[in-house]
C-alpha cells in the first residue's frame, strides 16, 4: 500500500537525521569468542574510550545494534552466534575483527573452523579489520566506518 507523503514533509531530511541518530548510538553486543575481544576491551577502556562516540557495550542481545565477530568461529560456536544474531532487533550491523572470522587466519584449513562469517550469518559485514589482532585504533576506525556508512545510507536497512 503506497502512502502519500504530506505536503511540506521532507522525507529525505528526516531520513538523514534518523540515520545520523542510528550512527551515533551503536551499542555493541559484548560477546567474546576469540582473542581479539581483549582488544575490544582495550578499546572500551579509558585510553581509547569508545563511548566518546556513543558506542557502548549492551547488556543483552535485545538491546544491541552491532555484533563484533572477534575470533575463530569453531563449529561449536556457530549455533550460538546464529542465535545471538537472530535475537538482535532489526537494524543490526556486523563488524569483522581480525583474520579469523574473515578467512580462518592461522586456523585456515582446520576441520572445525568456519573460515568466513558470511557462511553462517548470511549478511555482509560493514567493515573488515585485518590483523592478529588489530590495535584499538583499528577497531575505532571500523566503528567510525560503520557510522559513516550508516550516515551515507550505504549499509544497513531501515
Amino acid at each position, binding site marked *: 500500500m503506497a502512502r502519500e507523503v504530506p505536503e511540506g514533509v521532507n522525507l529525505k531530511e528526516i531520513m538523514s537525521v534518523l540515520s545520523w541518530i542510528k550512527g551515533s548510538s551503536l551499542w555493541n553486543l559484548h560477546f567474546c569468542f576469540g582473542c581479539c575481544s581483549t582488544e575490544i576491551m582495550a578499546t572500551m577502556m*579509558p*585510553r*581509547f*574510550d569508545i563511548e*566518546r562516540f556513543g558506542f557502548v557495550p549492551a547488556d543483552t542481545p535485545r538491546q544491541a545494534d552491532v555484533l563484533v565477530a572477534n575470533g575463530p568461529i569453531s563449529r561449536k560456536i556457530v549455533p550460538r552466534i546464529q542465535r545471538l544474531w537472530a535475537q538482535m532487533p532489526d537494524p543490526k550491523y556486523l563488524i569483522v575483527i581480525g*583474520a579469523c572470522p*574473515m*578467512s*580462518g*587466519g*592461522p586456523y*585456515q*584449513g582446520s576441520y572445525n573452523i568456519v*573460515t*568466513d562469517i*558470511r*557462511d553462517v550469518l548470511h549478511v555482509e559485514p*560493514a*567493515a*573488515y*579489520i*585485518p*590483523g*592478529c589482532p*588489530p*590495535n*584499538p*585504533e*583499528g577497531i*575505532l*576506525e*571500523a566503528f*567510525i*566506518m560503520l557510522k559513516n*556508512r550508516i550516515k551515507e545510507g550505504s*549499509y544497513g536497512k531501515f
Partner: protein
Amino acid sequence: MGLIKPLLYTLRELFKRPITVKYPYEKRDISPRVRNIHTLDRDTCQHCGICARMCPNNVLKMVDGYPTADYRYCSFCGICLDACPTGSIQMIHTQEHNIVRAYQKDLYMELLSPDGTIYNPDAPHSEDNETGGVL
C-alpha cells in the same frame, strides 16, 4: 575505613584530567616495533618467492613475479621480512595505515612502494565470494 578509601580515590580521579587519547583527532606514540602494512621495493626484489613460501598464513602470493598480499589472512607476524634475502619487503610502523575496508575484495592488494604509493592501480581483485581458507 575500608569503605572510605575507595570513595576518596574515586573523588580524586573525578577531578583529574582524563588519560584518553582522542584517537581520530590525536594519535598516540607507538612502539617502533609495531608492524603495519607491507611495502615492497620493486627495484631490489629478486622474484625468488621465498616470502610467499615462508608465509605461515599463505598471505603472499607471487603474481607477475612480485608478491601480492591478501590481508584477510595476514597476522602481521613479520616472517616475510626475515625471509627476504634482499630486505626489499618492509613493514610500515605508522598509525595511519590501519587497513580498514568495507569489502573483503579490497583487502587483496599489491604491496605498496616504500614511499606509500600504489604500483599498479589496475591490480586484479580476488572474487568477492571466494571464501578462501581451504588449502
